[in-house]
């Protein structure tokens, strides 16, 4: 046996680095950061690695915009369909880059303050970013899975980065155990779908596939439809763990509370958005709305099943997140529950995207979700930047009592935090409000157009939950401005990198809140081109 067989099997590898340029740039930057770190003196390490990371991310953003402007030509897939260039990917990639850049800015002062190895932290962050990008760009489940693993493994380490702190260790351990647990579910789902999509052709059994668009094409002819159902259910559980939807959210508060605050900021914004990217990529494109199929066809049944399950999950997620947040006394825990609730709001947009067969409407809904996640990322990172400053050495001061009366003693920090909280709450003129409006609007317009009462109900529940959330967001503002402090406290000096972060996030929150049109239009046009390109 025989070389000839090998040659016979050997398809031409479809290598095209142009299509994965952002991922390549970020990975190279990660390696460079490690090299620079190894050869630089300790004192300027933080600036060297931080600056290099920012440069790498900037380069990736440039590459992303280049792809966006059609720089790669008309090609939409590469590496034998492993990577797709559609604009779901590009818009998410931009969000990831923004999240990572802001995390680098927040962490620059933190790594010095805690005497942590800056180079390792920044290179792990860059690798995690590459992982997130891969999750959004994967045209094949193997890439989605690998991206998820790259992201997860980097995040496990980052969560445990303060090695001498037991809380950080435990957070890391919990994240690791439950993260790998959910990966196993996802993987089992992939395996079952791979088996379920085998097709009986006249020439014999044609093998199953893990290619997302292939899966969609084979749903109705698959030999073992029950396997597809089981696989989809398993993947739902796997992704549900990753984006912390109820009832798979139980790990979130512990992990978020224990992890170092800059890492928590990153985890709540980046991996969550990446989870959404992969989740939407897989479920919208592999199990799409079945236009022509009859109700008994597998594709229609799978679609109805996951959409129904997702709606229930969305309701649970919004409600659990908000209700449990009401009783939290720790700010990081409260923000963790709030992040669960926000995942629920974004899921409403996801359900809207799934409920339609119309390509334009679907891409509009996807754009709304991306916008929402971008808005959430900005306000969340900003809020955690402030929490980092207030918590100080060792992340000790994160109880609500630690915020009593700081309002006018640290005006910059507390006013910035108030803006972020109001935005999270959804007060007009902020990004949070606009995000909710666009997401709920998509859901309602689908609901009214198709007579789908479920979507309307989702929006109503979302609005009710917003009303509930008034209480706890306001509670923190009340603590900062209206309460008196009994213990001694001096305002922390705000270092330059944090000032920049706060300025960027505050401006971003107001920009997205007041002039969201340009950004939404950009995401939308992108989504539409994506759909037409892929057809």
């Amino acid at each position, binding site marked *: 046996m025989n070389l000839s067989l090998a040659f016979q*099997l050997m398809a031409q590898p479809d290598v095209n680095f142009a299509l994965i340029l952002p991922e390549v740039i970020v990975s190279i930057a990660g390696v460079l950061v490690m090299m620079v770190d190894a050869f630089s003196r300790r004192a300027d390490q933080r600036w060297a690695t931080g600056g290099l990371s920012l440069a790498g991310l900037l380069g990736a953003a440039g590459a992303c915009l280049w792809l966006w402007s059609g720089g790669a030509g008309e090609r939409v897939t590469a590496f034998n369909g492993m990577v797709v260039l559609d604009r779901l990917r590009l818009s998410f990639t931009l969000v990831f880059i923004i999240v990572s850049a802001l995390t680098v800015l927040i962490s620059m002062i933190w790594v010095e303050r805690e005497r942590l190895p800056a180079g390792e932290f920044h290179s792990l962050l860059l690798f995690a970013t590459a992982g997130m990008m891969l999750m959004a760009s994967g045209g094949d489940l*193997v890439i989605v*899975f*690998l991206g998820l*693993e790259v992201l997860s*493994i980097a995040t*496990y*380490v980052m969560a*445990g980065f303060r*090695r*001498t*702190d*037991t*809380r950080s*260790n*435990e*957070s*890391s*351990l*919990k994240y*690791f*155990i439950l993260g*790998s*647990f959910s*990966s*196993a579910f996802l*993987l*089992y789902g*992939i*395996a*079952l779908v*791979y*088996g379920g999509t*085998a097709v009986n052709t006249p020439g014999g*059994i*044609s*093998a*199953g*596939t*893990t290619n997302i668009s292939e899966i969609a094409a084979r749903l109705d002819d698959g030999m073992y439809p029950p396997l597809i159902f089981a696989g989809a259910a398993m993947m739902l559980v796997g992704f549900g763990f990753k984006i912390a939807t109820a009832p798979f959210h139980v790990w979130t508060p*512990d992990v978020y*509370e*224990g992890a170092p605050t800059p890492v928590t900021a990153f985890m709540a914004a980046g991996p969550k958005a990446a989870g959404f990217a992969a989740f939407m990529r897989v479920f919208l494109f592999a199990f799409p709305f079945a236009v022509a199929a009859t109700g008994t066809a597998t594709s229609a049944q799978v679609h109805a099943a996951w959409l129904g399950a997702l709606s229930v999950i969305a309701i649970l997620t919004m409600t659990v997140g908000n209700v449990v947040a009401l009783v939290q006394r720790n700010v990081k825990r409260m923000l963790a529950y709030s992040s669960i609730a926000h995942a629920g709001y974004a899921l409403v947009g996801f359900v809207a995207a799934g409920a339609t067969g119309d390509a334009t409407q679907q891409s509009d809904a996807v754009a709304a979700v991306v916008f929402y996640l971008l808005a959430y990322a900005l306000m969340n990172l900003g809020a955690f930047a402030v929490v980092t400053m207030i918590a100080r050495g060792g992340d000790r001061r994160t109880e609500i009592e630690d915020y009593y009366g700081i309002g006018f003693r640290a005006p910059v920090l507390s006013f910035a935090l108030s803006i972020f909280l109001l935005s999270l709450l959804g007060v007009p003129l902020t990004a949070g409000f606009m995000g909710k409006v666009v997401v709920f609007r998509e859901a309602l317009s689908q609901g009214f157009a198709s007579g789908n009462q479920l979507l309307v109900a989702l929006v109503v529940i979302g609005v009710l939950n917003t009303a509930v959330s008034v209480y706890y967001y306001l509670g923190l503002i009340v603590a900062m401005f209206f309460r008196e402090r009994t213990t001694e406290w001096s305002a922390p000096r705000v270092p330059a990198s944090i000032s920049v972060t706060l300025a960027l996030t505050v401006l971003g929150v107001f920009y997205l809140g007041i002039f969201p049109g340009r950004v939404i239009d950009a995401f939308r046009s992108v989504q539409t081109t994506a759909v037409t390109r892929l057809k």
Partner: protein
Amino acid sequence: MIPLSWYLALSAVLFTIGAAGVIIKRNAISMFMCIELMLNAVNLTFVAFSSHFNDVTGQLFVFIVMAVAASEAAVGLGIIIAIFRNRESLDVDEASILKL
């Protein structure tokens, strides 16, 4: 030859045992081993499908999964060592600052 479904059933049983183990076990290393068992169950599914369909993709996937499992093992054991250094115990209930 054995029908495909036997292998699938076997792997489902192994997966369930692994998942149950994660929930029952309270030692971090044992939990980690249960997760490895779950991954192996998935691998069995892949290999069974692959040889059934006469398609190499499933085995390639298994190869990737093994690499992932190895990386997870390295990082997971690193975490376990770090936590043991600080706490001298791997019992996830014991002295847990954060509730699980």
